């Protein structure tokens, strides 16, 4: 029967049937494979509301090949019994029969036969009972006739173990008329075509429904890196707040600008090889502003500007050492020095987001390089309250409104405050950044007026990014081990939400 024939026949049977038809039954009536009928049902289902089909499944027991053989010819042990004539049979003869080996051991355990090992001409088998009852065959015959339910579960499982029976699941459809049932099939269009638009035939056509459950085709596109997306947002926030971007494109820095100009003493642990990458080539920096350098030397070794200083032997050799900058504050120092060289002081707001380097031990949250976000405000008469107010505005733009400040220590800021925010998820206060007021020992040698206060704060870019994008290992975010799938799938960055 052709496919179209099956469709039509099926539709006619559905029309004729009361309530519905079963696919399995229909298949056997039509004499086609069930699979063919299922195909017909599926294609009819694709037509809107033509038919309805309900999937049904039933289980039944079937004989295996061996089972069928037994149902026909009797169990192996019964056949062994029958093969043994009253005068007995040599064991070697019996073993030649196809069922001999299995049947013999079963028949022995049933005590239907016995072996006379002493018989002349080799061991000989004799019947040990008159009649037997072949229960295995009887049970299988029951199953074959569709009366498997008469057997106990235990019996069925026993036969299943002997691989004579198997349980088969049959899936079939219960097919009923749909709301738009008809016995004639009109094939709907899949897509609108330019021709249909041109000749207006779309008005008469029926269109195949779309499957809105499926996903669309992914667009062919490029992606921005998550960390850079977050950087863009932070940049935006600073620009919204009127901050000017500092030129931080100088990874190599002298110890002078990175530490000394910030009033960080030369024996400070941060200046150890354990924490800082020193440069072997080019090893030393030159061209320091000499008068300023003298003032820095003096404030470290002797004090001045109302300060006791650190009172140690300040060495230019230490200041000359080139390093990979450990913070962008080195650039802030250069900018503030430049600001101080202006004829007349003008207030300034600076920011930067760029790489810094620490010779640290690496782990899931620490890398040897990371991005530092830094904000600096220089104006006359700024207060600690101003710093806190500015931080409040900044963090509000990140969606963080609950702030708390903890006194801290930093060689170049006084006061120094760690910024904590209340994390709703963790239900505790977590550190989100560092802040402070630059020390006069840093600002006055630069030549800034005495009443100018400079407030500053900093945080890492990686931490908020990891929180934002739910990344636990920093190496999956930064560097070549990045998971590109994560980059592909990343959402846009809205920090406040």
């Amino acid at each position, binding site marked *: 029967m052709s496919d179209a024939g099956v469709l039509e026949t099926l539709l006619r049977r559905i029309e004729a049937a009361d309530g519905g038809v079963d696919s399995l039954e229909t298949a056997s009536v039509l004499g086609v494979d069930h699979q063919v009928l299922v195909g017909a049902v599926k294609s009819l289902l694709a037509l809107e509301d033509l038919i309805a089909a309900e999937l049904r499944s039933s289980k039944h027991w079937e004989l295996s090949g061996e089972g069928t053989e037994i149902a026909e010819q009797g169990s192996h042990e019964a056949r062994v019994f029958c093969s043994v004539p009253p005068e007995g049979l040599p064991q070697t003869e019996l073993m030649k029969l196809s069922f001999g080996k299995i049947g013999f051991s079963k028949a022995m355990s049933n005590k239907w036969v016995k072996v006379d090992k002493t018989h002349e001409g080799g061991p000989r088998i004799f019947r040990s009972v008159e009649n037997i009852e072949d229960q295995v065959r009887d049970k299988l015959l029951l199953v074959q006739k569709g009366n498997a339910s008469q057997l106990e579960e235990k019996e069925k499982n026993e036969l299943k173990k002997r691989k004579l029976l198997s349980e088969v699941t049959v899936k079939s459809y219960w097919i009923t008329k749909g709301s738009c049932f008809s016995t004639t099939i009109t094939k709907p269009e899949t897509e609108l075509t330019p021709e249909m638009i041109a000749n207006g035939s779309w008005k008469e056509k029926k269109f195949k429904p779309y499957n809105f459950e499926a996903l669309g085709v992914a667009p062919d*596109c*490029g*992606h921005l890196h998550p960390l*850079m997306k977050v950087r863009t947002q932070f*940049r935006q926030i600073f620009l919204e*707040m*009127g901050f*000017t*971007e*500092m*030129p931080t494109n100088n*990874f*190599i*820095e*002298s110890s002078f600008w990175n530490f000394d100009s910030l009033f960080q003493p030369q*024996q400070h642990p941060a200046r150890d090889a354990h924490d800082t990458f*020193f*440069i*072997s080539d*080019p090893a030393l920096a*030159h*061209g320091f502003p*000499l008068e300023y350098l003298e003032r820095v030397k003096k404030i470290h070794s002797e*004090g001045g500007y*109302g*300060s*006791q200083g*650190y009172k*140690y032997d300040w060495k230019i050799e230490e200041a000359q050492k080139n390093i990979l900058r450990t913070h962008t504050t080195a*650039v802030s120092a*250069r900018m503030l020095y*430049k600001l101080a060289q202006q004829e007349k002081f003008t*207030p300034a*707001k600076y920011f930067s987001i760029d790489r810094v*380097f620490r*010779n640290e*031990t690496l782990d899931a949250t620490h890398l040897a*390089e990371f991005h530092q976000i830094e904000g600096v*405000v220089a104006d006359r008469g*700024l*207060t*600690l*309250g*101003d710093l*806190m*107010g*500015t931080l409040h505005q900044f963090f509000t733009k990140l969606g963080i409104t609950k702030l708390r400040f*903890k*006194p*801290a*220590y930093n060689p170049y800021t006084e*006061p120094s405050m760690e910024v904590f925010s209340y994390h709703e998820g963790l239900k505790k206060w977590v550190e989100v950044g560092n802040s402070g007021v630059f*020390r006069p*020992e840093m600002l006055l040698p630069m030549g800034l007026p005495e009443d100018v206060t400079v407030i500053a704060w900093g945080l890492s870019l990686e931490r908020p990014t990891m929180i934002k994008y739910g990344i636990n290992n920093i190496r999956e975010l*930064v560097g*070549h*081990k*990045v998971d*590109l799938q994560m980059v*592909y799938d990343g959402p846009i960055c809205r920090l406040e939400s």
Partner: protein
Amino acid sequence: MPTVGVKRDLLFKALGKTYTDVEFDELCFEYGLELDEITSEKEIISREQGDSKASGASDVILYKIDVPANRYDLLCLEGLVRGLQVFKNKLEAPRYRRVSPLSGEPQRLVITEETAAVRPHAVAAVLRNITFTQERYDSFIELQEKLHQNICRKRSLVAIGTHDLDTVSGPFTYTAKPPAEISFKPLNQTQEYTATQLMGLYKTDSHLRHYLHIIEDKPLYPVIYDSNGIVLSMPPIINGDHSKITLKTKNVFVECTATDLTKAKIVLDMMVTMFSEYCSQPFTVEEAEVLYPDGKTCTYPELAYRKEKLSSDFVNRKVGINESTETIARLLTKMCLRSEVTGVGDEIEVEIPPTRSDVIHACDIMEDAAMAYGFNNIPYTTPRTYTVANQFPLNKLTELLRQDLAAAGFTEALNFALCSAEDISDKLGKKISETRAVHIANPKTAEFQVARTTLLPGLLKTLAANRKMPLPLKLFEISDVVLKDDTKDVGARNSRRFCAVYYNKSPGFEVIHGLLDRTMQLLEVKSERGDGYHIQAAEDSTFFPGRCAEIFVGGKSVGRLGVLHPDVITRFELAMPCSAVEMDIEPFLGRPAETTLTHDVPLHEVIERHFPSQVPNSRPTSTKTLFGDVSSAAGLKALDDFLADKSYMEGFEATRADTTMFDAIPSAPSSTFPHLLRWYNHVKSFLRERANLPSAKSQFVLEEDDDDIDLFGSDDEDDCAEAEKLKEQRLAEYAAKKSKKPALIAKSSILLDVKPWDDETDMAKMEECVRSVKMEGLLWGQSKMVPVGYGIKKLQIGCVVEDEKVGTDLLEEAITAFEEYVQSVDVAAFNKV
């Protein structure tokens, strides 16, 4: 930040109050401490060495408290309790006093001059009639350890020795001897060792081996003897066993040897102020005399109280609060800074105790007032600072470009600025010496040997780590590389690069080339020779032979693109063909209105101070130029005319021809010469970087008297290699220039029409042939193809010639020599320059 471990119950007993963990955490937060961990000895051992080792260990609760790195007075239970009790107004800060011994004869420590070369300073004091308990003793030892690790910088700056005074007898001698001559029984050992043996013994000691390097290579080791020759200690390594302190010790001799006297004094003050609490007369310390080799005598401990005066207005103004003078004095007193209102205006006199070595400026006092006030009680205010935001032009360009490159279908990668030397050299088929790479002196692993000089290895490693991803992989990165650069104060500079890779079953050169075209489109650079961009075959060991091209913009190379060499692909553990482009993006920046690079500031200043000869306008120059004397109006007028349609003296960018001419002009021209003024102001912006400008092709300024010009003046820094090199280079250039010594050179600008045989002639090849004509005094200019009909185009090409050297007939002859391509050559235009 140092961490101090204290027993919780002991702490609460000393504080006279039991806190919950949360309450104590709050108190810490307010005081600038951090309750880092709540644990027990048992827990620590079981965590570090396993449960089996922990059985039997104490499970007394320990608080691990983080203390600010400059607060040495909080490094032990005694100091912490004292600080917090004063803060909570439960205790008045004690006054530490130095007293003379009852006998009248202070202990003496004599320093011999041998110590000068190894560890020149020593200070000492005595804690008289002290009562130790096990806890006090433990804390006493622990404080020494904490001080050693922090302010003493792992004993390199200061080392502390404490001794049972009753086991030794003064005066003590601090001297230095060859290690073989020092012999004693060190602490907790059963036999005597020489110092040499000790250094060997402690090589494997997990604790002491870290200090050996401090004196190891010194010919003399520091050592302290008593009057009977008993060794008290061999600083900074170990004390003698003889004078060791026990729970029964009543009198303690404390000595600190140091390379930094200021720190030694602080350390001694800390030791004695913290533990004088347990002396029979609390908070008194018995003095000791130190005799220097020069005969000077000093008495220690200093226990100096310093007085500072400040106004309450200062505190209010800096913090942003408005409190009375009395309140502020009270707040400061809470922080162990005893303060009194002097009654003169709003003046407060603050006494800084010896325990507060961290207070070195009025701002430190202000901070303590703010802390006592409570940071979180300060009202938030908004600064009224009015500023206009500016983006750093290079970052602005980067931001804009990134967006559009992602829109072009490429995914952004972000790689490390540090990498192995191999990544940028061997793996790319280059020599490390060619790379101009900055080398790191102390990398912990090979991944941090150099700063990258190219973005390509990072992208290739990203590809390798993402091989499981579906092909093609298209990646890009815009980021900085670092190159050595002598003109910068640190000898290196960043360079912003754009790099992209295409990784697929076929090399996809056309994809990368297309991306380059798109990038140029975004940057508004046209595809043409001359002002626009073009690519040209190049040799590069990173790329497959014949599959690499150099990118030229405005005639200058900015980068390369091509198909990677198979060796490069396999060295980066890749398997597919890959093409890549990498180029500089700084040339596309345009010139920002103001140069904001900070490193120029100090460099400029130093140039003015140290190399006065190089400062613009500082050397007398001739005002005689090709345009006449530019000190006269006529000369300026001629120059103004010349510059009417030109940005620079030569070509499309500033060269030294501009700066030389600039120098020749005595003062800024008046606005009657608008073109000259525009040029003058523009060239002025280049003066700081004049040394980097390309050299001049022709000489516009004529020298008055060659012999008298000393290009470099007297230079104090002659030993400086860099300066020397620069000088030689300059002299060579100068000599070259001088040898030409042209008088007034007549030049002409010629426009030639070169016609091909037919429409099948390879015009590009023809142009190449034309441009290959090289003569002295001939400079090829821009060209274009002009249609003449029937699909035939002619090449129109400009050139500038020196009239004396190049004639048009000579030129025509040379070009028609390429008869394979060239049908005829005509002069379309001829102008005298």
